């Protein structure tokens, strides 16, 4: 296991390096620049800005300088606002992570429960209702769901404010973020539970008089978890790093919007930092997923 983890970490470093390389050259290849605006910046000003941020040097030199600073823990400053990128991520990631973690927990717990109920009560009313609900939620884009929640709970019922200075409510954004993964986990759980419950070892367990609850949780659900874990790993990585749509509708200063504004503004340092950060989170999530596989199903060998 330890050897496997070391191997995976080394591979992860290589992966992140390749991602950084591709991202850096790709973003420099696309047209546009960080100092473009409707009213043109003067040539002298533009030259001063390019010199300040090393953009006057060849791209390969820029990449070398960026990686050198990165290895020293310096992510640079935003070309658009002058703020330290580490401050931007340091402030916005905890906000997104808090929402994402709450949403992920909600999605996993509800998804497993509803999926199990649907499998155990197949073709009965609860199953039908759950299928209906998950289909509805899966088909509904997050901006529709978020807007709907805003309309009902903020405007019609008045339970929470649409916006309040320094006091963001997290309930509605968490529900908005959780609904789609919850529906997906429900469907995955139901399918794999049905598959697991039809296996010989379940019949054997029941024949041997193992209590139903133990059959379901120890033999059924545990074996049904593998496909769910496969989905949950990357889902958590994605949900932790925020959603631009949900953050925009609920005015939350999370990390999600930074991915998009970085690109639209050609804020090169922000693009690089957010990409590398997401890659690191994704690699860690995948590694944890693999380890959890092993814990859930000892038959799996990590090599």
């Amino acid at each position, binding site marked *: 296991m330890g050897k496997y983890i070391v191997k995976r970490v080394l591979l992860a470093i290589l992966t992140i390096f390749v991602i950084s390389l591709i991202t850096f050259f790709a973003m420099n290849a*696309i*047209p*546009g*620049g960080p100092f*473009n*605006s*409707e*009213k*043109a*910046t*003067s*040539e*002298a*000003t533009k*030259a*001063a*800005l390019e010199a*300040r941020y090393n953009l006057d040097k060849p791209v390969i030199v820029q990449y070398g300088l960026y990686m050198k600073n990165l290895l020293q823990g310096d992510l640079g*400053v935003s070309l*658009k*606002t*002058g*703020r330290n990128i580490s*401050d*931007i991520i340091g*402030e*916005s990631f905890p906000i997104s992570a808090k929402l994402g973690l709450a949403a992920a927990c909600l999605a996993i717990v509800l998804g497993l429960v509803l999926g199990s109920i649907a499998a155990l009560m197949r073709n009965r009313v609860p199953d*039908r209702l759950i299928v*209906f609900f998950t*289909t*509805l939620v899966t*088909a*509904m884009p997050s901006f*529709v769901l978020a*807007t*709907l929640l*805003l*309309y*009902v709970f*903020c*405007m019609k019922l*008045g339970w929470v*404010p*649409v*916006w*309040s*200075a*320094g006091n*963001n409510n997290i309930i509605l954004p968490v529900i908005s973020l959780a609904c789609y993964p919850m529906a997906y986990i429900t469907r995955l759980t139901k399918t794999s539970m049905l598959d697991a419950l039809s296996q010989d070892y379940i019949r054997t367990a029941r024949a041997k008089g193992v209590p139903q609850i133990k059959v379901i949780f120890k033999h059924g659900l545990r074996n049904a978890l593998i496909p769910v874990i496969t989905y949950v790993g990357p889902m958590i990585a994605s949900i932790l790093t925020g959603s631009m749509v949900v*953050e*925009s*509708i*609920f*005015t*939350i*200063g*999370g990390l999600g*919007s930074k991915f998009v504004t970085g690109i*639209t503004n*050609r804020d090169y340092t922000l693009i690089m930092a957010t990409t590398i950060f997401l890659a690191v989170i994704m690699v860690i999530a995948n590694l944890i997923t693999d380890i959890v596989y092993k814990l859930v199903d000892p038959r799996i060998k990590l090599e």
Partner: protein
Amino acid sequence: MKKVLALVLALAMVLSLAACGGSSSSSTTTSDSDSSAAADGTTTSDSATNTDTTTLNINLASEPAYLDPALNSSVDGACLAVNSFEGLLTYDADGNLIEGCAESYEVSDDGLTYTFTMREGLLWSNGEGLDASDFEYSWRRAADVETAADYSYLFEVLADCQYDEDGNFIGLGDSSVVASEDGTTLTVTLSAPCPYFLDLCAFPVFFPVYEETVEANNPDGTTPGGWALDAGDSFVCNGAYVLQSWNHDSDMTYVKNEYYRDADSVSIETLNFMLSSDDTAIYAAYQSGDLDFIDTIPTDELGVLMAAEDPELYIIDELGTYYVTLNYNSDLWDELGLSETDAATFRQALCLLIDREYIVDNITQTGQELATTFIPAATSDSNGGLFEDGVEYYSVDNYEANVEEAKALLESIGFEFDESGMLTTDVSFTYLTNPSGSNVTIAEAMQADFASVGINMTIDQQEWNVFLETRKAGDYGVARGAWVMDYNDPINMLEMWTTNSGNNDCQFGRDDSAELDWSVYDDLITQIRNTADTAERVTLMREAEDMLMSTWCVLPIYYYNDSYMMKSNVSGVLATVTGNKYFMYATKTAE
């Protein structure tokens, strides 16, 4: 089951659309106010109101790029700047230019030297003293190329400017601006008389900044705006409000600056800003009473609000023009077989074919004035009048007559029409635009106008940043254009077309083989800049606009206006024609 599911999905969509739209308010009258007028709500709307009379909750836009007044170049950033900083001059509650940090000023007979006498007892928000030397430092810093301020070029009206070997402005010399040793007076020398110089003294890039924290937060010269990136001790200002907290991309709170020279007359103690550009969320927050003032209104709501004459909707003039820009040197004209003169006639025909009334009535929907000149109609001539008073480069009264005139113009340059009024030859071109806002819808309206006589216009949408680069490089034939003025003088929209200007999107003077001698225009702009006689200056600016419009490379569509909503229990917010909002004059009642 499927039918039920379909029904519920349809219901969800309808509800979501309703949420997107929000609910509209009943009302009686629309409040139109003149430019630079303080807006006063008179009747109540049925949207919820917040009764905290000491706090205003506001949305202007999303996260500002800079709070440093020297580095800011956005309208929303300027709004924040005018509420937290004050220049030598400022605007009063009625929009009149008045003394700010300066108690008085004198202008020399030749109009070149301004001597400002500072008010006594001016203080920064940290209680430290502020005097003329702070202005000298701030102006030199803002003009310095190392600060890299977008608006540094505005300092070029001063004398003794410094230029690099390529002729680029890089800063101010010793004699441009000088503070007296005791800090009581500031002497500014101009290179030529500048009728709008006093307006510039109230423009954010001319505001003072606190040297100690500015320099402390810029140790290696690479973070000039480092002092104003967050709330805290380093953010020091001299205006009515000081930044108390800033949750990035979420909200900002400003509180009354107790050291502000006129703090006693400021009624609102706290300004909370919602940092969002999501117009659905903004409008929902306004309707639910969480916001008192919004500067962004969903386009589909505007029509409803206008029709209902909602008393909380305010529409004022804004100095800006939405137009079509055409590349004078484009290969398009050769491809159409047109000489330079004929190409101008073709462009004039295009100008007449645009149904501006349809665009304003059905797309932009806030009653914008149809443009018949490039300079906005409300622009001052800096000589006591309006620059465009009585001027029209074409009429917009009768669209059908314009279409007939356009056809006649096209026939005059060799095009022929069949019995159904369509061109017999293929005439096609591409219109370049970015997809945001109403740009594409406006393009589609023009596409239909041109198609009515057989001209095929293809719409090419480019992402904002790419669009800017393509247009600036002149890699286009026809494109979207827009300009909002920084100060109220026509020169702001005339000097952008000089040969070497970075905003010369029409590419005038950049093809040596062209018959058009654009150096004449460049010379006109130089003369305007150097003319002391304001009446003569108006005449020269008229000549410049005439020359610009004679090319028909700029096809004005409408003049911008500024729409915002304000609760009926709030009054006194000053909104200016340059888009700034001054909240220090506001009052709020509990009803």
